[in-house]
């Protein structure tokens, strides 16, 4: 069981942190910008619905990068590190590691440059970022932000389930990345909506995602999800679940 996929309903936690800021440190904005650019420059965009001529974009980035990669980077670490590290700390670790693995930079380069910058900071000097680069890269990043990357695909696949059906969530091994909250496994739900067409996921997961398939909005009653002691009577939990995770009840 992977803790990162099983947060729902965890007991004994603190009161919620109501922090309204998106970023609590300036550096967090930088790693967010880098991740967004990576998604905008990803080599899989030539198969996306908007017309991206991605091979013509003059970036040296020629890897596949998506939300799935970022999420997997966070889900695939030691479960206690998942909580020890703050949200963007996980991004920074995962994305730095990706650039090293893919060979754009070496670990030594990164460490040496970081040490120089840290020394500047200690001396109260500001390190300037390098300038320049081909504006066509930024044109593509803006295009991606405005046009997105919809996972919707026309396949003609007939959904297995219909509105009103009672279904059960499968019990399956999650692997390193999943779009199934673990606490839903084995639980009973009702199909509220069958989304039109099919939806792909960015890459193949061990638990069955990857090819386009129907997605359903499912409703779970509180008493079908949780033990009596903590439930909110009358509450309904809805989630959008890929067909690969659902079986007849």
């Amino acid at each position: 069981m992977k803790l990162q996929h099983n947060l729902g309903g965890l007991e004994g936690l603190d009161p919620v942190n109501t922090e309204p800021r998106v970023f609590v440190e300036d550096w967090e904005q930088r790693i967010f910008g880098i991740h967004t650019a990576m998604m905008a420059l990803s080599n899989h965009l030539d198969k996306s619905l908007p017309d991206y001529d991605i091979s013509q974009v003059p970036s040296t980035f020629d890897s596949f990068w998506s939300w799935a990669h970022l999420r997997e980077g966070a889900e695939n670490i030691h479960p206690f590190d998942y909580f020890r590290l703050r949200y963007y700390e996980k991004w920074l670790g995962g994305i730095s590691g990706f650039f090293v693995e893919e060979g754009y930079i070496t670990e030594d380069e990164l460490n040496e440059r970081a040490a120089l910058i840290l020394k500047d900071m200690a001396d109260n000097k500001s390190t300037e970022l390098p300038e320049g680069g081909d504006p066509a890269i930024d044109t593509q990043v803006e295009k991606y932000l405005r046009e997105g990357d919809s996972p919707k695909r026309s396949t003609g696949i007939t959904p297995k389930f219909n509105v009103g059906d009672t279904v059960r969530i499968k019990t399956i091994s999650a692997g390193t990345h999943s779009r199934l909250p673990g606490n839903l496994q084995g639980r009973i739900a009702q199909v509220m909506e069958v989304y039109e067409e099919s939806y792909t996921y960015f890459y193949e997961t061990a638990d069955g995602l990857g090819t386009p398939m129907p997605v359903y909005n499912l409703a779970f009653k509180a008493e079908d999800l949780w033990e009596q002691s903590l439930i909110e009577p009358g509450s309904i939990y809805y989630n959008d679940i890929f067909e690969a995770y659902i079986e007849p009840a």
Partner: protein
Amino acid sequence: MTSLYPGFRYDADKEAISEARAKALESLLIEKGVITGKTVDQVLSYFDTEMGPFNGAKLVARAWVDPEFKKLLLEDCNAACEMLDLPNGMSGAEGEHMRIVENTADVHNVVVCTLCSCYPWPTLGLPPYWFKDPTFRARVVREPRVVLGEFGVQLSDSVNIRIWDSSAQIRWWVLPMRPEGTESLSEEELAKLLTPEAMMGVALVKAKSE
């Protein structure tokens, strides 16, 4: 602030280290032609000026004054976005498939992403820390009324709660109830009352903006 579990040990200068590593990474990526010297700033500027909760606020304010528009917003959020004077890209990144659910006297909706932090970027911008926090993600699905109370939201016992989790393509958000005492406000003034928290269901809209 985030609670620091005492069992974890943190470097006293961990923020400085992260800042240096992020800057080192960005510098190297620019030098190696992955991104330009302007890329990150351009992305950030996009969310400061084009995509943010100010868009969602306009949509909600219009829905409050125009019942036909409200119907469209609830049935086809992306189509409704095209009807208002909003920036180009409302169906762009993390907005390709948005849906909104309506709070009423009987039903209160709250949105979560238990697996990560999926959030409707074009209407609400980037997710606040509370939405990304594992404590919120874990607790709101099971004890929503208590969690809402911690945000300062007290609901009467007769109100039923609906929790919308985002594990696939839909980006959910909430159409909050229009507060009493706002009958004389213009659409623009109504829009100023909206917060990201209200449009995700963890706050009620106040008749006067703070």
